[in-house]
């Protein structure tokens, strides 16, 4: 009887669901196709042509752009710069954030202060702060070099020496990312049950370092994986500080992939070539993202 009654209602509900579901999803669907899917296909296609923005026609050149990019010394240097930047920022911001998080986690009254202090750079406008950093690192006017002189050390031309420019930008990158990673680690730390530590104390795991190695580090594993991947992606997308502080210089020593894409695509309007560079960029981002899904999977199963 009940089933008899509910059948027409259920099929009516079924139709309402189909209609409203489609209606609700339609704007998102349309925008996804316009903003993501079609442009993605367009980039892949453009990378196979010699199109230049404003030109009336373009030739199909196959993989010529990609081959040119991969053998172009400028792009090779820029790619290795980008990876070097990641290689400095990744361990720097992850390990320091972990250390800070472990130390901050035990604080009660001062925890709020430290959280604010370390997190502030994350919310600040990096471009504005880059100008400040430029001033801090100024050879004559900046306090950093003044401090070096005071200690009797030689001045360091942080942003005008090819050997120093990229590592300096990487330190600023660490400064910007540290608080973000710290908060992720703090979330991971508060998920570790307290009685594990008490049990360990009974078992004779007494010192802080032992506790860290036997409990904290293994249980933070999934969080750490996740932090490593998101940091790699963020660091790989470095652009702002390069564009404002060094413009890729001196002598190309701080050129990074995204900066080259910007120059080729939107300053020189070599659209086809820039599209090929974008494909290389996307390849790396996707590789990191695959690692991320893997990391997330492990997080869930833990």
């Amino acid at each position, binding site marked *: 009887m009940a089933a008899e009654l509910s059948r027409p209602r259920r099929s009516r509900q079924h139709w*309402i669901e*189909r209609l*409203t*579901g*489609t*209606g*609700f*999803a339609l*704007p*998102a*669907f349309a*925008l*996804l*196709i316009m*903003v*993501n*899917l079609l*442009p993605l296909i*367009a*980039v892949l296609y*453009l990378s196979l042509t010699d199109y230049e923005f404003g030109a009336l026609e373009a030739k199909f050149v196959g993989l010529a752009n990609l081959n040119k990019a991969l053998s172009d010394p400028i792009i090779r240097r820029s790619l290795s710069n980008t990876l070097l930047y990641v290689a400095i920022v990744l361990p720097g911001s992850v390990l*320091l954030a972990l*250390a*800070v998080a472990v*130390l901050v986690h035990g604080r009660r009254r*001062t925890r709020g202060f*430290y*959280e*604010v*202090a370390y*997190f*502030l750079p994350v*919310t*600040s*406008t*990096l*471009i*504005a*702060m880059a*100008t*400040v950093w430029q*001033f*801090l690192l100024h050879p004559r*006017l900046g*306090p950093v070099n*003044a401090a070096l002189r005071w200690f009797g050390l030689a001045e360091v031309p942080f942003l005008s020496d090819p050997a120093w420019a990229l590592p300096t930008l990487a330190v600023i990158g660490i*400064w910007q990312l540290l608080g*973000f990673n710290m*908060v992720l680690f703090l*979330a991971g730390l508060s998920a570790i049950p307290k009685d594990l530590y008490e049990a360990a104390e009974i078992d004779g795991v007494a010192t*802080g370092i032992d506790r860290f190695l036997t409990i904290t580090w293994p249980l933070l594993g999934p969080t750490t994986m*996740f932090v490593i991947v998101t940091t790699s992606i963020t660091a790989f997308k470095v*652009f702002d500080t390069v564009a404002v502080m060094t413009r890729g210089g001196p002598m190309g020593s701080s050129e990074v992939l995204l900066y080259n894409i*910007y120059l080729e*695509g939107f300053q020189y309007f070599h*659209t086809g070539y*820039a599209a090929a560079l*974008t494909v290389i960029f996307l390849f790396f*981002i996707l590789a990191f*993202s695959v690692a991320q899904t893997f990391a997330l999977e492990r997080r869930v199963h833990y």
Partner: protein
Amino acid sequence: MGAAALAEPIPLRATAAQTRIRRLLSLLATHAVLMAGAVFMLLPFVWMLMTSLKSPGEIFSADFTLWPRRFSAVENYDRALTTAPLLRFALNGFIICFGILVVQLLVAIPAAYALAKLKFPGRNPLFVLVLLGLCIPVQVPALPLYIALASLGLLNTYFAIMFPFFLSVFAIFLFRQFFKSFPDDIINAARLDGMSEFEIVWRIVVPSAWPAIAAFSVFSAVAHWNDLYWPLIVVSDTRLAPPPLGMMFFADAETGSNYGALTAAATVLTAPLVIAFLVARRRFIEGITMTGVK
């Protein structure tokens, strides 16, 4: 025997004192390390603020003092506000962040509800597209989007700055997770009461997802207030520049010589977010790190 019993408490008390000293020392060391790090993190902000108060003569002098001897705050801020439309940049930032956020919520919430609770044709392809979209930063579709906007004559408009961000796949993904845990019984009861799906979404499900929406709003506002790459591409008109691009224009115009005015400008453009952060610390930290926690 008696002597031994008397002697015993003494070393015990000594170890108690020892552990207390050790604890105190490790606490001191902890704070020393954390404070050193905090100084490194905060130094740029303090230096920015202090420099923006100093006179040019003092900024260029060889001896360094943190506290200004002569205050030139009025000159510096006046110079910054008159040579560049800083307040206009901040206003642009508000307009852009607000515009993006409103459309993001209007588009993502119904779509997320549909994905979480409704069966409809195209649900799986949509979800696959959302997952794909999560992996694609705006720098990838930038070239074709730029060409399309240019050929429509839309460069140098607020619309061009906002358009690529109207759809947040991240918002859809996040809200879907949230809506999925919303009890079906309540939705079915509302349906029996004759509520439309539209009403169910906006009057029942959305209020319950308020923490996720607030957190996402913070995340979105911070991201777009600070975004440089896309505005740099589509905006050349100074009057439309959001804060980072405006700062870049201003720094170029000043050619790096007038640090008093530069730091004053940096202070003005960083202040809104920093103040908002100090006021709503928990929401901010939740919002920005939600990407990692969810």
